[in-house]
């Protein structure tokens, strides 16, 4: 299976209004794909179609499974989701219970659960949060716990809908590095839905969504070539890519840079 997601000619109506009109979309397996679009471009509606929460006029195939009512249980067992701030997403009184719950449902032994949580503590430095009330945490910590609840199940696919927006930069980079490591080991595929163009620098592939249409998709190197595309979708290029374009115009550099350090090094040898 080369593609983790296939959507062919899907149309979707909501209350008589046509939202998606013959949508075509494929996402490669074992890659970090960012679906970039402004507020209202259709990101969350698309996520709901992937999750079977909404049904269009064509079958969506996710992770080789047809997204239909009968298959949802099987589908959800392979997917982890990280959605943006919902009120009352935490049902337990401690972070520890929240993290253990997804595993208890999957019949891990108490010892295995402890080991997994210990591993997360080591990796993400969250030991001090374990016995706190998750609803009382700062926005950044809530988001981290939400993400860890998805990761602890070892999902094959991680779907993130703006779920990293409150993380401080260091935590976000740590999270992304770990996701990329898993992707490299062919253990994970990430679909990251966001309007934050800076975050697209982390990804392998980019899909540009504008007003419920896929404008283009490809590797990030390819997509960044097309400035007009970003303008059309009301998106700004990432700072370092924007600066790269401007300096290329004056022949100061000959390609797009994704790292400030590399660009500074090359400009002032």
């Amino acid at each position, binding site marked *: 299976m080369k593609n983790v997601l296939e959507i062919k000619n899907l149309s979707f109506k909501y209350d008589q209004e046509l939202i998606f009109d013959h949508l075509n979309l494929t996402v490669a397996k074992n890659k970090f794909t960012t679906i970039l679009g402004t507020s209202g471009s259709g990101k969350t509606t698309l996520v709901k179609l992937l999750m079977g929460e909404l049904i269009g006029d064509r079958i969506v195939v996710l992770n080789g499974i047809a997204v239909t009512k009968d298959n949802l249980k099987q589908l959800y067992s392979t997917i982890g989701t990280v959605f943006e701030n919902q*009120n009352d997403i935490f049902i337990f009184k401690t972070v520890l219970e929240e993290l253990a719950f997804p595993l208890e449902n999957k019949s891990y032994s108490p010892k295995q659960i402890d080991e997994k949580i210990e591993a997360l503590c080591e990796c993400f430095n969250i030991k001090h949060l374990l016995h706190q009330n998750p609803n009382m945490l700062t926005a950044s910590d809530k988001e981290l716990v939400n993400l860890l609840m998805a990761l602890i199940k070892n999902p094959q696919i991680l779907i993130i809908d703006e779920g990293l927006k409150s993380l401080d930069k*260091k935590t976000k980079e740590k999270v992304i590095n770990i996701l990329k490591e898993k992707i490299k080991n062919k253990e994970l595929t990430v679909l990251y839905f966001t309007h934050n163009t800076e975050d697209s620098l982390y990804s392998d592939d980019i899909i540009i969504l504008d007003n419920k249409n896929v404008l283009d998709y490809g590797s990030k190197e390819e997509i960044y070539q097309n400035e007009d595309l970003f303008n059309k979708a009301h998106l700004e290029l990432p*700072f370092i890519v924007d600066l790269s374009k401007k300096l290329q115009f*004056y022949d100061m550099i000959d390609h797009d840079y994704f790292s400030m350090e590399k660009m500074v090094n090359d400009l*002032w040898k």
Partner: protein
Amino acid sequence: MEIKVNHVDYTYDDKTKALNNLNMLIKDNTITGIIGAKAAGKTTLAQILALEKFPVNGSVQMKTITIAKKNDKEMIQNLMKQIGFISEYYNENFLYDTVYKEIDFMLNTYEYVTLNHEKRIKDSLKIVGLSENLLHRHVNTLSQGEKKKLMLAKMLSYNPKIIIIDEPSLDLDSYSQNELIKLLRMMKTRYHKTIILLSKDTNFINKLADYIYVIEEGTVKEEGRKYDVFSGDELEKTALDLPLITSFIKLARQEKNVKIEYRDDIYDLMKDVYQSAR
């Protein structure tokens, strides 16, 4: 309206000290940026400035009125009509009714006097860039960005003199962020409002703050004009990131000893790089 924060302490029930001898002067008709990493005390400070919490020690002075640990209820209620506040957790502050009713509720609660409620509601939507077509839509059907703009519309509807927003750029794409910057500048210059923005998004604050306070562990670590604060060394000691453009310039200056100026605008930076590196 000038606001003075005098030696404010705030301790939570579980003994966490969120604010520790905090002192600030917010000048009338300015845009002040209060920046800090997570758990710096930003949200607690926002709640105190918005009169949702009161200092455990110290006081806040707004014009001639002093707010301390205990206050006259009526005085606070009157003062609140002059303050508009958007919390980081603004999703909790909707009625979860139609757009029309959400704004109408604010006009009634804050006793905004107008002969034409409907016009005031439509104008509030217009000013934040939301379509009139959304008037009878339920809040649940809006995208997150639209919800954020609706909260802005609710806050502005009763014409508060002081605007306080905790994490203003949250949930706004770059296009909407630029629209918000224009809106806040207009609120300052045309409507003479005093604006306080609390944020960890230094890129956003860099674009419009007149004056900046850096807070960490509930106290002021640094203050000044944005050029001084962002180009200095204090900020790097906190968990905050510099604006991207400032990071780049700092890197060039420190790693390569290049003498380029601190700039706000990428076009100015481009010219400087061209001069320096060719």
